[in-house]
């Protein structure tokens, strides 16, 4: 019973972070929420008895994708500051 409650809580947190990541106005906050979503996905993979996927998701899905997205957000901000000083 308690494992089912844990699963439900994880699912609610997952769906909420995904929804907020897509709907928030600030781009930086959206990317940070996406990284949170990736880490929650790593927890979900651990709950689904898939430790290989949990390792890969935490390192690649949340870590590398998050770094790529944050780098692009920084690049876009610098570019906007250049064209609208």
């Amino acid at each position, binding site marked *: 019973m308690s494992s089912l409650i844990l699963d439900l809580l994880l699912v609610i947190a997952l769906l909420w972070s995904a929804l907020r990541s897509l709907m928030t106005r600030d781009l930086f906050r959206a990317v940070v929420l996406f990284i949170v979503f990736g880490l929650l996905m790593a927890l979900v993979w651990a709950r689904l008895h898939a430790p290989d996927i949990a*390792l*890969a998701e935490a*390192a*690649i899905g949340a*870590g*590398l994708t998050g*770094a*790529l997205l944050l*780098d*692009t957000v920084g690049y876009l901000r610098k570019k906007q500051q250049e064209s609208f000083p």
Partner: protein
Amino acid sequence: MRNLLNVLVIVLSAALGLVLIGVILESPSPARVRLPEEVLMQIGASGVTHPVTAVLLNFRGYDTLLEVMVLLLALLGVLAQMGKQKRENPPAGFYLTEPRMQVLLWLARVLVPLMVLVAGYLLWAGGHQPGGAFQAGAVLAAAGVLLNLSGLLPSWMEPAWNLRAGLVSGLLVFLLIAAAVMMTASPGLLLQYPPASAGMLILLVETGLTLSLGLILAGLFLFLSGDAIDDEADK
């Protein structure tokens, strides 16, 4: 009109979601073919004891081969989008004066050798417990990204010959082993490792894949982060 279309899209997507959930809940259990038992029956002949590694590198090795090719193709696409820009990194002295960057520098210097060690362990442990080439390559890529973010490794511009060799070495090792196996042990069948030497072959392929994957994944970040802001040069 736009709002009406948006509402229509949302309503249709909600309907799609309900249909998908209904299908998932109603789908019958598989009757005859049970994949986990099939894998466990054949795992003795695969050379490793961890089922996911056996599936990834032996039973479905062809998918892994194609996946490395797709990764290289994506890296070539990223390289094609970057123009020829000169190096724009600030000198390293800039970083050493700020206190928060000193913590990052110290962290990078302590963590990166540990990460290389962890990657080597994950590569070896993939045979009998969760781990393997992809996780090890991801840890190596993360080490590269950490080095770049703390200023110790400048962003990559145009790959030199040694970087190019490292990037393709994993795929080449995989192809060479596949060709050697196809010509000697099991003629005509692709990637049918002979059960006696399957473990050693899988370890060789995984080593090449780890090095290559670490370089490719780090390159996906490092080639992008060196993009200069003033890009009138490539117009």
